[in-house]
């Protein structure tokens, strides 16, 4: 049991970070607004979302690419290989945990 719990990733303990990662797993990339729309049910503020993104970025789980569309800044978020592996490991641990009941 302890072993399984160790495999649960601390970065994904927070629901919003887990949701961000889920969305990036199945999309090539998403921009800030697309992420915000997806997380609409959480009633999240821009600042709050930005800090969760920063947290995942610091863990090297997502990659940020800044560019301009005309004069408007546009930021794209990608899941990194490391992030994908971590997410899959976390999912596997969750499954194991639930099967163990």
């Amino acid at each position, binding site marked *: 049991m302890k072993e399984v719990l160790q495999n649960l990733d601390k970065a994904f303990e927070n629901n919003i970070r*887990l*949701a961000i990662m*889920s969305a990036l797993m*199945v*999309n090539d990339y998403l921009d800030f607004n*697309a992420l915000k729309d*997806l997380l609409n*049910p959480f009633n999240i503020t821009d600042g709050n979302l930005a800090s969760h993104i920063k947290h995942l970025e610091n863990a090297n789980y997502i990659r940020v690419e800044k560019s301009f569309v005309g004069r408007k800044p546009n930021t794209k978020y990608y899941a990194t290989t490391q992030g994908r592996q971590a997410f899959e490991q976390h999912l596997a641990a969750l499954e194991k*945990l639930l099967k163990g009941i």
Partner: protein
Amino acid sequence: MENSKHFDDLGQIRSIMERSTKFLSLSAWAAILAGVYALIGAFFAYRLIYFAPVVRYRAMTESLFSPEVLPLFFDAIIVLALAVGTTVWLSYRKARKAGQKLWTPAAIRVLVNFSIPLVTGGLFTLVLYMNGYFSLIVASTLIFYGLALLNAGNFTFSDIRKLGMIEILIGFAAALFPGKGLLFWALGFGVLHIVYGIIMYWKYER
């Protein structure tokens, strides 16, 4: 207690993955109405073609947009505009009701994947028309529309892929029985849309 949180987590992951890749605001009612417009349009086309004082077929070969053919074009364009307009409007309402936006990355993906085969088909059909292959026009519209649905189905309700496959089959049937074009057209764009819309309403919106 911890376990129920993990269980919720899994559900949430699933829902976000689905919502972020699939466009689920497509309204079932839009399909039903599009089918009704197509049937009404087909009825007018039938009257235009079969109760006309001149033989349309000859008129079409003489000039590209002769006065005899124009009403048929308008008929088709009105049906198309109404169907597209209704779909956008009802999908917008469905998205708003669910607290979501209509214009999401998933919606763009559906639109792009639907439009490429459809525009290709539209242009190809125009070429058929210009070269006088009238007997293949209905088949061409049905087949390319079916391919467009099949392609778009990867990014919205997968049921729409089945609709696409049936449209393709009806298109081939129309190619084999050229004299019955309008009938197949009414079947493919009218009846089939209504049946599909009812099934979708039953399955997802009830």
